[in-house]
């Protein structure tokens, strides 16, 4: 974009500013759009589960316009700041939540190299920034000057900080397989058919994926882990005193966060923009054929990615409207007694697998069944992998091996 503007002899500062603004606007659209779609989806899916119809009137038969209508209604509501609240912090808190939720999208790739900010520590950046979202909640809960809000804030703090640990452990698994924290690279590593997805890489990654999803639900504060706003216990938790626009802003943070964790799951485990069927490469929509073809292929990839994100959100909604809420001690038990040890075990398992049987299950299978007809993608991957397990007499000299591997990336 900036290059294009530069090529029509726009001043450099203008070119870069315009490019940055466009990317920001696109990301904002994604963040807000995902919120709007998720809210609509939440209403519709929950309605179906509950034997209702959900919104049917605003914007036609399917109630498409319900989210904007909701937003408009909430904007018209009276903006209340309780007398006991700490005014500035109370006002600030929703924006902290929203800004961090939005900031995370900077590093989330939507298709091959379609990412606002390609960081070589992309995964880590996302984990770090999404961990900050808790701040808005804590501040909001504290600044409300209500005991229920304080309870919500405390629960949120305890829960989110705890669940960051197993989540990070799960995220390390794909990083370990690819050898990079760059999300684009992780996504591209899974190119091809769906059995190249990391979730099908080996049994350990399959288990890791489910642990990750559990932690993802917990870290976004969705039922059955929605303790911070548990309406039957804490009235509305940290949201108790919020109304109108600020309340909307909190939701504008919650729903993009859902999309984010599903999107991250899709990049890390479900192939990201690489579909179950490699449509783009089957149709020769690669940049090697023509730049435009590559662009269209990427567009298809982005649709694929977004579809996976929406699927993840749908699953979360499904879960929310089916299960009762856990208790705080059970939530912490789930994290510390089950998720953390299991995730650690899976990490160790993947390490072992990578060492003994490099490549995924399907790479092994392909190799076993038809060594001659391995497709190109697999060949490339095997080249990058540490190579087949060597005979026992060579095991003693394997020390420099891991270093070589990492270093060649």
């Amino acid at each position, binding site marked *: 974009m900036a290059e294009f503007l530069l090529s029509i002899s726009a*001043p*450099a*500062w203008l070119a*870069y500013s315009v490019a940055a603004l466009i990317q920001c606007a696109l990301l904002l659209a994604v963040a807000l759009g995902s919120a709007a779609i998720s809210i609509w989806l939440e209403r519709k899916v929950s309605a179906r589960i509950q034997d209702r119809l959900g919104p049917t009137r605003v914007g036609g038969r399917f109630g498409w316009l319900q989210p904007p209508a909701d937003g408009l209604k909430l904007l018209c509501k009276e903006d209340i700041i309780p007398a006991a609240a*700490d005014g*500035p*912090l109370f006002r*600030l808190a929703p924006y902290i939540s929203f800004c961090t939720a939005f900031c995370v999208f900077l590093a989330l790739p939507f298709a091959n190299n379609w990412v606002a900010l390609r*960081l*070589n*520590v992309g995964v*880590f*950046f996302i*984990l*770090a*920034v999404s*961990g*900050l979202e*808790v*701040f808005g909640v*804590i*501040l909001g809960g*504290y*600044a409300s000057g209500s005991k229920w809000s*304080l309870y919500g*804030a*405390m629960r949120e*703090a305890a829960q*989110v*900080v705890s669940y*960051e640990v197993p989540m990070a452990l799960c995220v390390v698994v794909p990083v370990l397989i690819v*050898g*990079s*924290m760059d999300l684009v690279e992780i996504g591209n590593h899974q190119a091809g058919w769906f059995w190249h997805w990391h979730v099908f890489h080996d049994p350990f990654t399959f288990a890791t994926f489910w642990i990750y999803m559990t932690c993802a639900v917990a870290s976004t504060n969705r039922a059955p882990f929605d303790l911070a706003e548990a309406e039957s216990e804490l009235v509305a938790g940290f949201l108790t005193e919020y109304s109108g626009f600020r309340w909307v802003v909190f939701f504008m943070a919650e729903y993009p966060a859902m999309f984010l964790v599903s999107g991250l799951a899709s990049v890390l485990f479900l192939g990201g923009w690489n579909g179950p069927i490699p449509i783009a490469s089957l149709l020769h929509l690669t940049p090697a054929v023509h730049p435009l073809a590559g662009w269209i292929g990427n567009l298809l990839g982005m649709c694929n990615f977004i579809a996976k994100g929406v699927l993840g959100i749908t699953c979360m909604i499904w879960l929310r409207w089916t299960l009762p809420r856990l208790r705080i*001690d059970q939530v912490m038990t789930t994290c510390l007694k089950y998720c953390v040890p299991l995730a650690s075990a899976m990490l160790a398992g993947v390490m072992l697998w990578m060492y003994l049987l490099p490549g995924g299950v399907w790479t092994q299978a392909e190799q076993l069944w038809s060594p001659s007809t391995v497709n190109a993608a697999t060949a490339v991957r095997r080249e990058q992998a540490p190579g087949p397990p060597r005979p026992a007499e060579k095991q003693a000299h394997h020390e420099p091996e891991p*270093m070589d591997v*990492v*270093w060649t*990336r």
Partner: protein
Amino acid sequence: MDAVNWHTIFFWLFAMLACGFAVGVVVTNNIVRMACCLVASLGAVAGLFFLAGTEFVGAVQLMVYVGGTMVLLVFGVMLTARGPFVSMQTGGGQWILATIIGGALLAVLLQAAFSVPQWMAPKPLVPQAAPAPTAATLGLALMGVRVDKLERPDPVLRKGMSGYLLAFEIISVHLVVVLVGAAYLARAKRALGPRPIGLGGRSAPPLGAAQK
């Protein structure tokens, strides 16, 4: 106008944020707001880390410092912040003394910072010297392998290939010890006397079962 230096602009942005909120930490008396200012300041410092090309450290700063430590701190603030203790005034004399010493310190440090001409502005970057991915080299360094030193043209600088494995291990053990110690220290024992509740003082039902 033609050569806006984006690095400079963002540097000033983050520097102003970091310094401004750091001053905010000093001047605020409300402990919760202090914590907020500190968070903002540390976040801005993370931005400076990113600008300096050390993305990994920046992300660690965000994750561990801002995400973890500060949540811990805010937790502590909430656990202890009650009415009269939320703000504690410091005497004027102390303030004056501290400001004088602080000002002197600042003057010395700034003098030192700007005293070396080579530090004022970078030499133009040699294209080959563009920062390599830091995470992998850093990780290897922590595991005791200094691949970055292999690149050095000067054989003298190539010495000291030892990495940080020992330090890494010590810190890991240290962290565990601190966690256990902190958990032990924060415990407070207290025996609750029987409380008069509602009607009758009969023995309570076996509540232990409720905690399964």
